[in-house]
């Protein structure tokens, strides 16, 4: 006997990829720098 295993459906969820999260985070940081929240970032 063979059995197929199916995951129960709970509806699709809207998910962002890691790439997109990284871009959003970088843009947020860039915006904060532009608005003067971070005036100087030391290195």
């Amino acid at each position, binding site marked *: *006997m*063979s*059995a*197929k*295993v*199916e*995951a*129960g*459906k*709970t509806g699709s*969820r809207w998910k962002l*990829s*890691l*790439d*997109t*999260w*990284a*871009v959003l*985070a*970088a*843009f947020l*940081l*860039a915006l904060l*720098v*532009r608005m003067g929240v*971070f*005036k*100087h*970032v*030391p*290195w």
Partner: protein
Amino acid sequence: MADVVTVPQVQPVQPALRFLRVIPGVLLLAAVGYAGKLLEQNVGVYAKAHHWTFPNIEYVLWAIVLGLVISNTVGVPEIFRTGVATYEFWLKAGIVLLGARFLLGDILKLGGVSLVLVAIEIVGSLAFMTFLGRVFKLKPKLTTLLAVGSAVCGVSAIIATKGAIEADDEDSSFSIAAILALGALALFTFPVIGHFLHLSDKAYGLWAGLGVDNTAEATAAGALYSDAAGKLAVLVKSTRNAMIGFVVLAYAIYWASKGQAQAVGNKAKFLWQKFPKFVLGFLLISVLATYHFFNKDQVGALANLSRWAFLLTFAGVGLRTNFGEMRKQGLRPFAVGAIGEVAIAGFTLALVYGAGKIFGW
């Protein structure tokens, strides 16, 4: 008749809990990266004060080596692993922020040259890796995964291709292990060869971007040489990454034509799904910087934020590399990968020399 067993889906982890889980690992990345920075600043001073001859070792190498030592001695405890895996996130955010240091004109000029070189590199590498896979009698899908990993962009390309051609988990584990091990070797050998051959920052940056597989390793190998070489390596590597969709689509169509993978329906949608979005982010920040949306101090601040993001990435490269785990994956795919990588490194170096002659670098 096959029975269908429906398993209730596991409840997704709450976002707040997921966020809490990454904190220990991110703190470890920051601690290892910052320790690397402190070592860069202090070891040289200490050696000089004691009249020792000690080479100036950049924070990039310190961070990677510290990570490697931890990963290959005491290991990375479970509590840190989720956070350590975020190094890809920091890498991509760092690349987007690095866009502020490029003027659009430079990108178009360098990007045009690198696009031609990348196209030649991808075609040559795919053909050679396919040939090697046949010589070593590797499984065809394993050969495809190794070829895509070597020619385009390492682990991301392997993962994207695995899904599209319906390759086995075992094949993708083999390929990822081989590509990661060879990437770690490239980190240490590329800068040494570059210095030995007295390559200019431009030539070396192009070579690292074309020849090193994984984006994190290519970024680190470039930064180990010089800041300028690091910038160029990221640009060239991003150009390679941008090609991922086309290569994966071609392989998906090929395997579907053999009846061993699902046919691709909407090709434009497929390309968009596979396209690395951080390349678009990088270009957009560069456009904003070119049209003076940021002043000079703000560009400096964004560049430093990018350096901090890369610091976490370099620590992550060391922490996720475990040679013991890689050894378990077997020697044959590694041997194919190693021969292929050496050939690709030589081939891309010849391409860079050729381009240097044409453009007078």
